[in-house]
């Protein structure tokens, strides 16, 4: 039998572990204390969360959960003190660490791994859950999409009736969850001018959640997100409570849209690009609104929002700039490619493919990414990372001349090669997978161009 340890002693031990981890330089110590606390006493997480006077809100999605949570934090943090797992540690241990870190926090705001959602929700008993999208992602780790959807249904069924459920109505599987809960907010895009005529290659959830017939899309915005209807049984996008209309894309710099809330319209200008960030902003605004934020607070928060770490970053490196966009699954990478090409197709790109657990050990997903729009403009692709050769093959068989592909597995050497190919005052596009992004940021930080993320997050 385990001896009961007082919560205060557990917390002190876990905080000491965090300090040691930072001193040892092993990488910010973002989950070490949470893991320790988790080992000492799993239910301590429940008790820590129960201390938050305003409760907790959870955010999950295959793509955009870190950005959505950062946007929600930008809206909410003016008024309330947050416990927020900003560095993206999104399993139960990461939530525990954020709870330990934030003394005197009033509200918990946590991004949560898709698969971990039922357990985190069971422990934290959130007052709001925001669910963004379900895309095919790391099948070697999460299993099939259907299994993740099943876990989400479980979490929603167990949710307190008074808790707010905020869902993306443009995603058939996610929108369907609203029908199972009385207090639901449904967001989506309503701007057919921004749509695509057909679904992208890697689109998921093409088949009716009720009867299996392929959906007809009046408009598809990002992957399978859009305005859908089943021609056989009539299952369709639910009515939207919060909408984005009149969207204007401004290349790589910004996107503007009208946010239609139940209590009026607001014009928003985001300092990050792309339709997928409109989805992130809609999710954050809908969640903040459900938590009581005013329209003014939402506008101010979204306007001053700066991209979440590593997801979309511009870093000055001497007289050149790096433009780094994280890629991690087909839907997200398609949007990164679309965003870049809408700005101006790059002549040089460094694409980094690693295959650690956090990247997905199965690299087959790169073959489902529509990299083709990059190919006509590329004079040189620097393929890097542990699976650089595999990435090079993706482009070779996509039609890029083998002479325009440089395989440089070492990330440092690849970055230097890319910078050397970039003219002065020019911008080098970097598309890394998760662990490659961390490593590239570390390389840039060592050269003094950017602070490590745990300092920034503090």
């Amino acid at each position, binding site marked *: 039998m385990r001896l009961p340890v007082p919560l205060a002693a557990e917390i002190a031990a876990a905080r000491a572990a965090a300090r040691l981890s930072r001193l040892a330089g092993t990488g910010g110590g973002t989950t070490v204390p949470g893991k320790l606390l988790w080992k000492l006493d799993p239910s301590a997480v429940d008790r820590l969360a129960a201390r938050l006077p305003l409760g907790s809100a959870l955010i999950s999605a295959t793509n955009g959960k870190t950005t959505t949570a950062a946007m929600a934090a930008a809206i909410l943090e003016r008024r309330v003190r947050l416990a927020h797992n900003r560095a993206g540690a999104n399993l139960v241990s990461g939530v525990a660490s954020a709870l330990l870190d934030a003394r005197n926090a009033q509200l918990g705001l946590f991004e949560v791994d898709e698969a971990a959602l039922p357990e985190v929700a069971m422990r934290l008993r959130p007052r709001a859950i925001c669910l963004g999208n379900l895309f095919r992602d790391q099948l070697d780790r999460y299993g099939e999409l*259907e299994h993740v959807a099943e876990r989400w249904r479980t979490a929603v069924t167990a949710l307190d009736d008074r808790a707010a459920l905020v869902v993306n109505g443009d995603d058939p599987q996610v929108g369907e969850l609203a029908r199972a809960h009385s207090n639901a907010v449904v967001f989506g895009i309503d701007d057919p001018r921004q749509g695509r005529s057909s679904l992208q290659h890697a689109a998921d959830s093409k088949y009716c959640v009720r009867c299996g017939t392929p959906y007809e899309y009046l408009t598809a915005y990002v992957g399978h997100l859009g305005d859908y209807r089943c021609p056989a049984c009539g299952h369709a996008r639910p009515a939207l409570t919060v909408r984005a209309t009149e969207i204007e894309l401004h290349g790589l710099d910004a996107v503007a849209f009208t946010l239609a809330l139940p209590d009026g319209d607001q014009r928003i200008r985001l300092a990050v690009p792309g339709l997928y960030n409109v989805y992130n902003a809609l999710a954050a605004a809908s969640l903040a609104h459900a938590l009581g934020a005013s329209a003014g607070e939402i506008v101010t928060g979204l306007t001053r929002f700066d991209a979440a770490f590593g997801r979309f970053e511009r870093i000055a490196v001497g007289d050149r700039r790096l433009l780094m966009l994280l890629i991690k699954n087909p839907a997200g990478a398609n949007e990164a490619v679309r965003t870049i090409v809408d700005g101006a197709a790059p002549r040089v790109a460094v694409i980094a493919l690693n295959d650690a657990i956090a990247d997905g*050990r199965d690299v087959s997903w790169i073959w489902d990414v529509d990299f083709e729009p990059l190919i006509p403009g590329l004079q040189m692709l620097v393929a890097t990372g542990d699976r650089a*050769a*595999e990435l090079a093959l993706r482009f070779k*068989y*996509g039609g890029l001349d*083998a002479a325009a592909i440089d395989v440089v597995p070492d990330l440092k050497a690849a970055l230097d090669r890319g910078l050397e190919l970039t003219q002065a005052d020019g911008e080098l596009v970097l598309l890394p997978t998760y662990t490659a992004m961390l490593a590239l940021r570390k390389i840039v930080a060592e050269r003094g161009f950017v602070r490590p993320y745990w300092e920034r997050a503090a």
Partner: protein
Amino acid sequence: MKIRVGHLYPDYLNIYADRGNIAVLTRRAAWRGHELDVRGLSIGDAMDPAAHDLLYVGGGQDREQALIAHDIAAKRDGIIAAAEAGTAILAVCGGYQLLGRSYRDFHGADLPGVGLFPLETVAGERRMIGDVLLECELDAGVRRPLAGFENHAGRTHLDDGAEPLGRVVAGFGNDGESGYEGCRVGRAVGTYLHGPLLPRNPWFADWVLAQALAHATGRDPEPLEPLADELEAEAHRISARRAETRGGRY
């Protein structure tokens, strides 16, 4: 030469980047002066056994596989007749299972298969996930390696005397126990290996193309002109090393 390819259910069975395999076949044929004419064959389309030199079937999630199971059963006679007439067939993952005799799913329900491959598949509790390395001997006396990635809950059991695609050097293979992977019947090959399979195994891509060309010309398969495959060799080397260091084992 025009090589006619029937791609079965491209809308439903495409989970592990099956279009990568098609892209490799298309380019490698083109580099030898052949044209790959790829047509989708989906639900409701007639299966003409003489219309193709190569049939390709990819993998899908359980839901998608269930959606097309009824239709592929209706194409059964056409697929068998095509195979008997020497059409080349490559079936990966879910497609491999569907071309067997039957698939028993997680809930114990039986989905009938095409019955081209002499095997049965039963869904197991744990998925077999990881890098795989095989040793194959498709042409007598010539042993060659195949490197890929597997991710399947199905345990596939070959009938006695059935020919596997290869011997498992590292990874799980058909059922995690027999030491074999895949199945071969003449010019038809089924396998769990994706990755996708063909980019990092160019010899096998060329073997499949040679079988399809043999059907197109009515002659015996002939070796194809070699290509510069340094990148492919490097990707293969890394994939094979992954299998050796972290391929699945019970």
